[in-house]
C-alpha cells in the first residue's frame, strides 16, 4: 500500500522546510555566497561602468548557477549524514514523489535567494531588474537548475569524489539553460524588441519542461539499492 503521491510530496517538502527553518543553513549559505559573488563581480568590473551594466545578466545567472550547486551539494550532504534519504527510500512512497518533493524544496530555497538577489543587483548595478518578465525568467531558470540538480546531486552524492563531481556533471547540461536565460534577460534589460527575448524565453521554458519530465522518469534509477 503506497502513500498517495500528493501526500508524500507534501510530506517531503514539509520535512525539508522544517529542517531548513530550524537550521537556516542552506538559505544563509546560498545567500552569503550570492552576496559575495555579486560584490566580487562588482569589484572586478568596477573600472568600466558600461561593462558592468552590460554584464548584469551574466553576473546574475553565473551567480545563480553556482549558488544552486552549492545549495544542492550541502542539501544532499545533510541528507546523507543524517540518513534522511535512506529513511525516505525505506518508506512506501513512489520515487517520483521523492524527486518532486526534493525538487520543490530545492527550488523554493534557491528561488528565495534569487528573489533577494534581484533588488540587490538593481541597487549595485544600476539596472532595474524588478520587472515582471525578468522575475518570471529567473523563476523558470531556477526551476530548471533545481530539476536537473536534484537528480544529479542525488547521483553524485553516492560517488567517490562527491561534492567535486556535481559541477562537472551539472554545468554542461545546464549550459543551454544558462545561454537562453542570459539571452532573454539581456534582451529584456536592453529593451530589445519582444520577438527577440521571447524566443529565448520560449526555448528556456521548453528545455526546462523536457529535462523536468526526463528527470522525473529517471529518478528512480539513481536511488535504487
Amino acid at each position, binding site marked *: 500500500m503506497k502513500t498517495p503521491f500528493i501526500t508524500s510530496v507534501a510530506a517531503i517538502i514539509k520535512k525539508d522546510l522544517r529542517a531548513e527553518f530550524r537550521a537556516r543553513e542552506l538559505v544563509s549559505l546560498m545567500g552569503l555566497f550570492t552576496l559575495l559573488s555579486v560584490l566580487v563581480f562588482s569589484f572586478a568590473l568596477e573600472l568600466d561602468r558600461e561593462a558592468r551594466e552590460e554584464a548584469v545578466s551574466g553576473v546574475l545567472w553565473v551567480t545563480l548557477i553556482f549558488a544552486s550547486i552549492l545549495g544542492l551539494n550541502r542539501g544532499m550532504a545533510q541528507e546523507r549524514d543524517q540518513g534522511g534519504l535512506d529513511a525516505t527510500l525505506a518508506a512506501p512512497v513512489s520515487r517520483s514523489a521523492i524527486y518532486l518533493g526534493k525538487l520543490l524544496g530545492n527550488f523554493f530555497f534557491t528561488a528565495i535567494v534569487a528573489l533577494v538577489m534581484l533588488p540587490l543587483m538593481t541597487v549595485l548595478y544600476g539596472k532595474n531588474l524588478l520587472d515582471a518578465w525578468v522575475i518570471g525568467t529567473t523563476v523558470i531558470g531556477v526551476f530548471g537548475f533545481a530539476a536537473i540538480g536534484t537528480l544529479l546531486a542525488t547521483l553524485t552524492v553516492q560517488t567517490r569524489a562527491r561534492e567535486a*563531481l556535481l559541477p562537472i556533471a551539472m554545468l554542461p547540461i545546464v549550459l543551454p539553460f544558462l545561454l537562453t536565460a542570459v539571452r532573454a534577460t539581456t534582451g529584456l534589460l536592453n529593451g530589445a524588441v519582444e520577438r527577440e527575448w521571447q524566443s529565448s524565453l520560449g526555448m528556456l521554458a521548453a528545455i526546462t519542461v523536457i529535462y523536468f519530465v526526463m528527470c522525473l522518469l529517471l529518478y528512480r534509477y539513481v536511488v535504487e539499492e
Partner: protein
Amino acid sequence: MGEKPKLAASDLQIERRPQPRLLRILTVITALGFAGSLYLGLAAAGTDILQGEIQRIFYIHMPSFFGAFTAFGLTLVGGLIYLARRREKWDRIALAGVEVGLAFSLINLLTGSIWARPIWNTWWTWDPRLTSAAIMCLTYAAYLMLRAGIDDLDRRRAFMSVYGILAFVTVLITLFIIRIVPETIHPVIVGASPQNAQGGFEATSGVVMALIPSLLLWLIFMPLTLMWHRVRLENRIEALNRLKTQALSE
C-alpha cells in the same frame, strides 16, 4: 578458504576469443570505404568555384557529425535497454558510443574550425550551432569524468545510463538549432539555408556524389566498427579486473 575457485585456463577465454567474421568483414569494408570516400572527396569531386579546395573538408565535416549522432544515439539506446534489462553488455555499448561519438564530434569541431578560418575569417565564433556543438562535447566529456568517479559497478552502470540518456538532449539541440534559432551563420547544405548563413554552396550532383558514400560510411560503418572493437576491449578489461580480484583473494 579452500572453497574459492582456483584460477583456470578457461578464465582467460574472453581474451582468446577470436574476432567474429562479421567484425572482420566490417573492419575491411570500413577501411576500404574510408580510403574510397577520401578519394571521392579529395580528388574525384570538382573544386568549388567560390571557396576553392577548402570546401572539400565538408566531405568529412558533416559526415563526422552524423557519425557522432549514431554513436551517441547508441549510447541512448544502450542506456535505455540497460535500465530495462540490466545486462552489462548494453552498458558497454553505451560507453563505447560515448568514446567514439566524442572522437567524431571533436573531428567535426576541428574540421569546422579549419574551414571557418579562411571562409569566416575566424577559427571560432559563438554562433548558436557552434556553441551547442561545444556544449555537446563537454557533456560527453563530463560523462567520462563522472564514470571514472563511481566505484560500485552496478551503481556505475545505472547512473551512467541515466546520464547518457540526459546527455542526448544536447545532440538533438545541436541538430535542430539551425531550424529554431534563425540568426546562425552556419550554412545548411541540404535544405533551405538560414538568411545570414555565410559560406554555403549548392548541393550540385558532384557534391552529392562525393557526399553520399562518405555519409553512409560515417553514419553506419565507422561508428559500428569502432564501437564493436571498443566493446570487445571493454570485455577484456573487465575479464582482466575479475582475474586480478580473484588472484588477490587467493
